[in-house]
């Protein structure tokens, strides 16, 4: 089982979490939306698999490169 981290592309805030922990995702499925520079930025699943962990909650400040969630496949 390979573990893939879903990382933040940009420093900002967690605006909305779109997927639930435990869900099975296809590559490109929306995991959450960040808000930065007044824009809503979707965070997509980099690979298909099961979303095993969501490490942030709505309203959290996140830094570029920070791990937001984990997908296993």
């Amino acid at each position, binding site marked *: 089982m390979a573990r893939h981290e879903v990382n933040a*592309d*940009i*420093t900002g805030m967690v605006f909305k979490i779109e997927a639930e922990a435990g869900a099975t995702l296809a590559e490109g499925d929306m995991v959450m939306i960040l808000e*930065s*520079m*007044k*824009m*809503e*930025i*979707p965070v997509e699943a980099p690979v298909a698999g099961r979303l095993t962990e969501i490490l942030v909650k709505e309203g959290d400040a996140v*830094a*570029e490169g920070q791990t937001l969630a984990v997908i296993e496949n």
Partner: protein
Amino acid sequence: MAHEEALKDYEERRRRALAMGGEAKLAKRKATGVLNARERIDLLLDDDSFLESGLFGTSVMPGDADNTPGDGKLAGFGRLDGRDIAVVSNDFTVKGASSSATNMKKIGHVKRVATERGMPLVMFGESSGARMPDNMGARGMGTMLGNDPQQYVRLRESPWVSAILGQCYGSSAWYACLSDFVVMRRGAVMAVASPVLASLAIGQTVDSEELGGTKLHSEVTGLVDLVTDTDEEAIAAIRRFLSYLPGHANEAPPRASVPDGSDDDGDGVLAALPESRNRVYDVRKILRSVLDRDSFMELKPLFGKPGVIGLGRLDGRAVGIIANNPMGKAGALDVAASEKITRFIVMCDSFNLPLLMFVDTPGFVIGIEGERQKAPGKIMNFMTALQMATVPKLSVLMRKSYGQAYLNMGGGRNSDDIAAWPTAEVSFMDPAYAARVVTWGRDDAEERARIEDEMRRSSSAYDIASIYAVQAVIRPQETRRYLKRMLEIHELRPTRGVGQHRMRNWPSTY
């Protein structure tokens, strides 16, 4: 000697030279699905057009002549789509294509001819580095290296292309870094020195993929423009890249025919643009609708994603595209995107490719991460490059254009002509932030909302058009038609499409 005997001897010597490192090594290589040095040349060039230079070159070391056919690096000239080009192909089956006295002379020669006579140079990189023990000792060093004071000078007289098709340490890596286009096959490696040396010299255990694999170079260093799965795809990418470029800096790029249906997708532009100003989208959809059908060749797609760069054609004319991509970091330009765009501007300007800019950026990325990577310096390299460029520069203000990024993306007199879409908004910073700055310390939400609203209303396409800081406001659907005509209008007629190349000696990486 009778003629017959001399010719028989010739055929025998020729056969041995063409045999490269021998059947066993070639067969082993073939089994891995990798092309050999001669197959790569054949696939690149037009049929039967290869004229080899140095077929009978061998090692100068005593006893090595018989086991170094071609001395491990093949060189010569040929035609690509009917145009003359020079080519170097490392033959890994002969002493790991290591650099030696004879083969360095071969490379130096075709490189010089390509540069002075004005034709592209293609280098198939796959080399273990300097040949041992030839290069060892002070005499070895003095004999092999440093005898060409122009070896690593790049004045962009003609396009250089490198393919990383195996392990590339030493000169193959250096030439790749000096090239205008670098394609890398998955599984290949480019690094200063091999993992073996890393382990011997500094005790670092590292695998070659981590040290210099495709992931590193396509996502982190940006030294590679394109990654392919096979040698064949890499060679096809080289042919495609060169199809946009002139043979040398003093001619205009070749004009191609326009594919049917290229004028049909004006509505695609509008469909790709979200109605909400806070929503992101993939700018590449817009580019594909504007450009000639299937003509967009994106470069460095995984590096510096807020900035999209690539070659394309508009009405058959080759152009360089620079676009902000809201899909990447909301289009906020980071250090990687700035480096990528700077290098691209230098390349396009050096080879007379007009620049088309598609603007939708909330600004440069701010915060510690960028500052630690010298963001102000990178932003100025980018800005200077744009102002130094003398090719036609056209820009389209699609949506946001804020702050310094407004200038870097061609705002004001930094483009020769600018068109804004009705969706454009131009200001020093996003009104939401600006309203907070000017009401700092006062907790009056109503006042803040009023100021923000006023600021937003004065940031429109028509405001900027009213002072003629953009020359036109156009419907998004007619962008292609507008740019086609503007490219004609701004053609460099007095010099037949050739710019001044004021950055010809700029570095090739930043």
